[in-house]
């Protein structure tokens, strides 16, 4: 079994019109046993920047704490929030530093940059950035997520439609993966508000 399949996870981010969505499943397992059904994988860095961490849960939490620490230092020095592009470079550098003993995490970074332009990117566990203009996926359900997002994605979706699309893509994909699921947590971020929803899914 691969280290990434120890806890099981599914995270996806999608770009809409002046907004973005980031969603994850809620299962925390130890191989085939489910331990929790309310595990948080998407974390807030600042109001307009979120990071979703799939892979080994302990590394996800440690990496999140380190990133928040670095961002707070940045806020103290620069007196402003980090731009998503800068944050992506920071995450990439932190991960590459551990090139020969990596964190077993695949981060997804989603934020609103200058002029509230949505920005999403993902990386592998040693920091190889992949910027995308439509959607990014990671986790044990990533292959199903690629397929679902590839078919369901449309450019320039409004927040309501984006929410429906992301939720349906996530739920369809985790239903084909034993290690992720047990509900979904979807965040839609627009320049004026943040909508957090817990989506009902199959609990198996």
């Amino acid at each position, binding site marked *: 079994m691969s*280290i990434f399949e120890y806890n099981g996870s599914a995270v996806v981010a999608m770009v809409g019109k002046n907004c973005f969505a980031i969603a994850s499943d809620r299962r925390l397992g130890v191989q085939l046993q489910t331990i929790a059904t309310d595990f948080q994988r998407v974390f807030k860095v600042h*109001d307009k920047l979120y990071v979703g961490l799939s892979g080994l849960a302990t590394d996800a939490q440690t990496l999140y704490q380190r990133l928040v620490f670095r961002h707070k230092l940045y806020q103290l020095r620069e007196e402003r929030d980090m731009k998503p592009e800068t944050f992506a470079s920071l995450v990439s550098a932190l991960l590459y530093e551990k090139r020969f003993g990596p964190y077993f995490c695949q981060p997804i970074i989603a934020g609103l940059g200058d002029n509230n332009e949505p920005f999403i990117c993902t990386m592998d566990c*040693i920091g*190889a950035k992949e910027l995308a203009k439509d959607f990014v996926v990671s986790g044990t359900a990533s292959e199903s997520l690629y397929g679902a997002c590839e078919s369901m994605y449309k450019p320039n979706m409004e927040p309501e439609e984006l929410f429906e699309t992301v939720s349906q893509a996530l739920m369809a994909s985790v239903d084909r993966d034993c290690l992720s699921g047990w509900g979904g947590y979807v965040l839609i971020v627009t320049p004026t508000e*943040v909508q957090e929803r817990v989506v009902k899914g199959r609990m198996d």
Partner: protein
Amino acid sequence: MTGSMDLPAKGGFSFELCRRNDMLEKKGLKLPGFRKTGTTIVGLVFQDGVVLGADTRATEGPIVADKNCEKIHFMAPNIYCCGAGTAADTEAVTDMVSSQLQLHRYATGRESRVVTALTLLKSHLFRYQGHVSAALVLGGVDCTGPHLHTVYPHGSTDTLPFATMGSGSLAAMSVFESKYKEGLTREEGIQLVAEAICAGIFNDLGSGSNVDVCVITKGKTEYLRNHQLPNPRTYVSSKGYSFTKGQTEVLSTKITQLKQTAEVAEGGDAMEE
């Protein structure tokens, strides 16, 4: 240091987690695969300079992770480098050498030379004995003329008039070996490079998507991103999926308004003493 205070590190690799990862591996958990750039990368020297080419597919095992990634990295205004191998390694090593070259330009006040980039790359890769898995095609034009080199992950280099690297290198090299001649013009050079990359795209499973080309001549560099798109997506449904609002079952909703930035109105009365 036992990791008590996570101050930003001074640079270089950190081996803190190696012991834990070894322990996990002994317990039977396989280490993950890294994203590779399966790749076809090529370069050739033509009469006025150098043309570099690359495909745009990034793979994670058998899955295509990125259909349009950039494999031609900037090193200096007159030097570009194509990278194959582990994606994080090629990006990190080219970024690092690019910064070192810039500092060197500030210190010397001169345009960077290709051999400088070459030496910096090969010494770094040799130091890590091939564990930094980056195979590069480095090309540029400096005061001594056009240069094209290949750099292997263990640190060896070759200087060549035409070169290919990556999993699609054999397909691309077959095109070069049949059609390359000295003194090509710019159009012929670009045409030949595009043909070689297409050979890699269509015959090698690790390469795909589009063709990126970079033409470097004395005093001018042109980066033709997506010069050719031989694999357009033609199967998209025109209607797409549409979901009605409220189709997804929601258990709970929480909407937070973000702080609105307050506009400070200028031109009020000045405060009294």
